[in-house]
């Protein structure tokens, strides 16, 4: 609350979320934190047997970063829908950047519903692309 409708306009960029270089330690924490114990994310021997050069990041970790960008922008309970397609694999050392753009705005009585296009990329290489629907309480315009 506190913001008025003027704070949200189609075409606005969501403040981007820039992550530090992805480490094995982060993947180990996410393995335990998420309950996704697939060894392809934590065990290089297993990853090599699966035909990869190294472990890969969890797609759902990248999606969690996208969700974090959205909740940082819209508030923790604002997210109604979050949909992504996984289009690339996250590698160790990747500096993931999440971005979003306000594509659509629907004005309700005490809230505004926004459709955001969202991505996570490493340079030009896209990892995920999708959209989020958020509902934000707003004060009536003066």
């Amino acid at each position, binding site marked *: 609350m506190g913001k008025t409708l003027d704070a949200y306009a189609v075409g606005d960029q969501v403040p981007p979320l820039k*992550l530090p270089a992805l480490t094995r330690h*982060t993947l180990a*924490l*996410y393995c*335990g*934190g*998420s*309950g*996704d114990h697939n060894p392809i994310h934590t065990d290089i021997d297993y990853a090599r047997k*699966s035909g990869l050069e190294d472990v890969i990041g969890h*797609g*759902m*970790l990248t*999606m*969690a*970063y996208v*969700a*974090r960008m*959205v*909740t*940082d922008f819209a508030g*923790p*309970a604002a*997210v*109604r*829908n*979050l*949909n*992504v*397609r*996984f289009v690339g694999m996250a590698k160790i050392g990747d500096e993931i950047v999440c971005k979003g753009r306000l594509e659509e705005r629907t004005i309700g009585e005490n809230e505004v519903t926004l459709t955001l296009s969202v991505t996570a990329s490493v340079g030009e290489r896209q990892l995920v692309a999708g959209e989020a629907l958020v509902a934000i309480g707003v004060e009536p315009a003066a």
Partner: protein
Amino acid sequence: MMDKTKIGFMLPAAQARVEAGQLKLFSKATGQTDPVYLNSEAAQAAGYRDILAPPTFVTCLYMLGRGDPAPAYKALGVRMERVLHAEQRFELHEPICAGDDISFETKVADIFSKKDGALEFLVQESKALNQFGRHAATALQTIVVRN
């Protein structure tokens, strides 16, 4: 090949208690620093029952609750070692908080193939109900099997 007659089949039910320690570790791993994700008092001051689960945590609960997915995948004809996550969708209806008991009703929503069967897709739709019998969230997971 996956068995398309399994579309509409229910997968084994899963249940999970939302544990504060699990949420804190998830938030540490994903860098969520908003205190509503970490601290009971902050979450309650913001109007939640207890520490709030971040948006994507509902799939973690499902994984923690269902245990080893291998038997269900095997029954559907999915080769686990060839699986990648293709798409994930969430519809969030109610906050999920530490202490909640979430039950999952999961069904095979779709099975389809592309490139003459080289890629097979399995869509699982998981409905999360909380301890009040309210529909908290739906998660739609699409995995691709590379044949």
